[in-house]
């Protein structure tokens, strides 16, 4: 169907963000692997702490790629994405304090990493639901 084609803007956005984010994530994975490898054999101390934190630097590169992508989006897509991010943040918050109540009555303590998984999962789910709802 003709209406389902992508515009030049869509293709340009996907190409540019794919390259920038892909490169950032590739560097992140390399630095992460290296930091895990070297940190294992190091003694506890400042150098080991900095080595473990080293992947934060390429992670900032990914953040930079995301910010650049936001700036390239047109008005509607920016609002659309911000609404999805707000909903994902709300879901994560509700999960976070609800589970906090459950921990109070003896449920197992969860790692802080779970909030990241919940946020990314609800981001993906919200995006899919909205795309289905807005389908012509």
């Amino acid at each position, binding site marked *: 169907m*003709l*209406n*389902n*084609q992508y*515009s*030049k803007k869509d293709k340009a956005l996907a190409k540019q963000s794919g390259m920038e984010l892909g490169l950032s994530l590739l560097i992140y994975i390399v630095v992460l692997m290296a930091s895990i490898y070297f940190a294992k054999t190091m003694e506890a101390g400042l150098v080991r702490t900095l080595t473990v934190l080293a992947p934060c630097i390429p992670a900032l590169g990914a953040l930079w790629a995301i910010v650049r992508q936001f700036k390239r989006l047109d008005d*509607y897509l920016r*609002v659309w994405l911000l609404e999805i991010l707000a909903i994902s943040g709300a879901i994560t918050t509700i999960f976070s304090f609800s589970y906090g109540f459950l921990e109070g009555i003896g449920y197992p303590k969860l790692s802080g990493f779970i909030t990241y998984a919940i946020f990314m999962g609800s981001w993906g789910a919200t995006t899919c639901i909205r795309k289905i709802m807005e389908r012509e």
Partner: protein
Amino acid sequence: MMRNIVKELRTDRDWSQATLADHLEVSRQTVNAIETGRYDPSLPLAFTISKLFGKPIEQIFFVD
């Protein structure tokens, strides 16, 4: 609520949403949102649409 005749103007020219999006330099999703009334375009985009179709803004966008 705002309504518009963007879809009618587009189909009169036998353009797809993607073709109109290319003319306006926006995403196809944005064109779809404008046509279905989910999104009212910014003033600069409304002027671009007006110029593209050669019609005053008030003839394309109006209050229901």
